[in-house]
C-alpha cells in the first residue's frame, strides 16, 4: 500500500537488536557453563576463551555465563511486562476514548489511581508477602503498573479518531462495537502503539534492572540488574574489578539504546512528514534541493517577506482534471 523506505537509523537499530537477541537466545548454548557453578576465585581476571573470558564475579561464577543468561532474563521480563502493559493500556484507552461519558470517567479515574502507585512500593510489599519472587511475578507487577501513560495517550488519540466520519459510516453499516474498535479505530492507532510498545519494553528492562540493583529483583534467576547489584555490594568498583560491572552495564546500554533508536526510526517511518529526502535531479544530487526536515504544504503568514507559503504540493497535474 505505502512505499516503505527504511532509513539507515532503522538498520543500525535492527542490527544492534539482532545481536542482543542472538546473545540472549543462543548465547547459553555457546557458553556451555552453568552461571551458578563456581569456576574460579573471587574476582579472577579475564583469561582465555573459556568460562573465564570475562573473569569471575564475587562468588567465583563465570561472568560471561551470567551475562548471557542475564541478558535472556532481562529481555524476557522486559518483553512480558511490556506486552502486559501495552495490552492493558490499549484496552483501557480505546474503550474510555470511544465510549466517553460515565465509562470514560470511570476508566480515567482508574488510570489516574494507577498512575500514582509507585512500582517499588508494590514490589516491596510483594517481597514481604511472598518468599519467592519469580521473573513472572515481577513482570506481572511491572506490567500492571506501567500502563497508565499509554492509556492516556491512546484515549486521546481515540477521541480524535472517534470524530472521523468513517466511524459514523461503520455504525450505519451495522457494525457492532468490538468490530468498530478493532477494525476502524485500532488500525489508526497502530503506528503509535507499535512505538509505544517498544518504549514499554525498553522501560521495563531498565525498571527491572533498577529493582534488581535495589535488591528487589527476581530471587531465582540471574539478570543484568542482579549482576550489578552484586557488583556494587561486593565493591568491584572500588577494587577495580571492571569485568564485574562493565559488561552488564554495556549490555544494558546497548539494549536500551537500540530500542530507543528503533522507536525513533519507526516514528520516521510512520510519519511521512519527518522523512528526509534528497530530490534527485537528472544530473545528480544537488544540495539546493534538499527538503527541509519537517515539511508540509502549509502556507504561512510570516514576518519574512510578508505573506509567503511553499508551493502547494496538492496542485500536481498527475491527477489532472479528472
Amino acid at each position, binding site marked *: *500500500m505505502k512505499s516503505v523506505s527504511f532509513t539507515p537509523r532503522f538498520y543500525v537499530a535492527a542490527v544492534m537488536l539482532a545481536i542482543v537477541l542472538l546473545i540472549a537466545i543462543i548465547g547459553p548454548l555457546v557458553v556451555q557453563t552453568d552461571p551458578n557453578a563456581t569456576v574460579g576465585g573471587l574476582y579472577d581476571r579475564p583469561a582465555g576463551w573459556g568460562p573465564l573470558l570475562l573473569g569471575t564475579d564475587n562468588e567465583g561464577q563465570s561472568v560471561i555465563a551470567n551475562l548471557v543468561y542475564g541478558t535472556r532474563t532481562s529481555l524476557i521480563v522486559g518483553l512480558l511486562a511490556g506486552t502486559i502493559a501495552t495490552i492493558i493500556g490499549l484496552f483501557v484507552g480505546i474503550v474510555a476514548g470511544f465510549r466517553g461519558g460515565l465509562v470514560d470517567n470511570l476508566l480515567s479515574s482508574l488510570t489516574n489511581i494507577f498512575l500514582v502507585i509507585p512500582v517499588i512500593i508494590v514490589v516491596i510489599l510483594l517481597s514481604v508477602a511472598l518468599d519467592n519472587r519469580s521473573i513472572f511475578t515481577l513482570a506481572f507487577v511491572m506490567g500492571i503498573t506501567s500502563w497508565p501513560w499509554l492509556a492516556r495517550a491512546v484515549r486521546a488519540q481515540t477521541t480524535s479518531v472517534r470524530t*472521523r*466520519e*468513517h466511524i*459514523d*459510516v*461503520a*455504525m*450505519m*453499516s*451495522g*457494525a457492532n462495537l468490538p468490530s468498530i474498535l478493532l*477494525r*476502524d479505530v485500532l*488500525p489508526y492507532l497502530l503506528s503509535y502503539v507499535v512505538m509505544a510498545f517498544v518504549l514499554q519494553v525498553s522501560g521495563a528492562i531498565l525498571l527491572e534492572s533498577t529493582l534488581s540493583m535495589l535488591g528487589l529483583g527476581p530471587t531465582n534467576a540471574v539478570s543484568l540488574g542482579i549482576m550489578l547489584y552484586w557488583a556494587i555490594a561486593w565493591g568491584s568498583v572500588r577494587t577495580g574489578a571492571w569485568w564485574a560491572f562493565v559488561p552488564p552495564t554495556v549490555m544494558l546500554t546497548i539494549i536500551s539504546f537500540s530500542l530507543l533508536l528503533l522507536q525513533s526510526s519507526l516514528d520516521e517511518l510512520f510519519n511521512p512528514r519527518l522523512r528526509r529526502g534528497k530530490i534527485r535531479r537528472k544530473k545528480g544530487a544537488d544540495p539546493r534541493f534538499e527538503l527541509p526536515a519537517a515539511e508540509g504544504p502549509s502556507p504561512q503568514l510570516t514576518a519574512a517577506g510578508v505573506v509567503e507559503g511553499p508551493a502547494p504540493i496538492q496542485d500536481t497535474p498527475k*491527477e489532472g*482534471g*479528472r
Partner: protein
Amino acid sequence: MDALFTASNLTKTFGSGKDAVTAVNDVSFALQQGQITTIVGESGSGKSTIARMVLGLLPITSGKLTFDGKDVTNPTGAARKAYWADVQAVFQDPFSAFNQFFTVKTLLYRSLRLLHESVGQDRLEEALGHVGMDLSVLDRYPHQLSGGQRQRVMIARALMLRPKLMIADEATSMLDASLRVNILNVLTDLRDELDMTVLFITHDIGQACYLADQVLVMEHGIMVEQGTVDDVIFNPQHEYTRKLVADVPKLHQEIELHIGDHEAAARDLA
C-alpha cells in the same frame, strides 16, 4: 399524501448556562415521499446539526421527529439499528468517511451482514450500477480512487440497504465543480428510478436550485423560508433569502457590488 419524515419544533442547544449555544432553534419541516428537499444555509446556520439529529447520531434537546408515522426521536440501540435500515447517509469528506485500511470490497461487504445472504451480492452489484460503477472497483483502496469516485462508492454503500430516505450532508462540497454535477445527477436518478426521498444539505444555493424540489433556508439556527425552487429562489420573501440569492456570484448576470460604500455611510454619520 403523508410526509415520509417530519420534524416538529426541533431544537438543539450545546453547553449550558451562560455558554449555551442554540444551534437549531424551533425548526419544523416535512420531507415528502419521492422528493428532493434541500436545506440551504451558511456556516453556523445549523444545517449539519439538523442532519446529524435526523440521522440519530446526535441527541436532540427538544422536539419530535417522526418517520413513516413512527416516533424516531433519539433512537438508541436496536431501535436505532432498525432506523438505519431505512435511513442512510453520504457525508461531506470523501476521504475521512473512508476507512483507509479497507478496500471498497471490505466496506461494502460489511453491510451485507445486514442483508439476507441470497440478496446481498445482487444488491451490491445493483447499487454500484446505479452510481455508474462496476465490480472492478471492489479491489481498490480509497487512495486509489478520485474524490468523485469515492463519493459514488459511498452512495452505493448507502443504496445497498435500500433506504427510504437518503441524507447527503454537503456531499459535493469537497469535489470539483465538474464532479458535482455527476453526483447531483445520481441523486436525481435515484429519485426518478427508485422513488427515493432525498435530503440534501448544502451551503451552495446554485446546487439547491439545480437539484431540489423543495428548498428550506436556514439562518443562525432558524428556518427563515420554505417552499419550491420557484418560490424561494426566484421569488424570495424573507430578507435573508433575498440577500443570499442576490449576493451569490452568477455567470450570466452581474451582481450588485457596492465598492467604497462605507465612506458614504461614514459621511452620513459625520
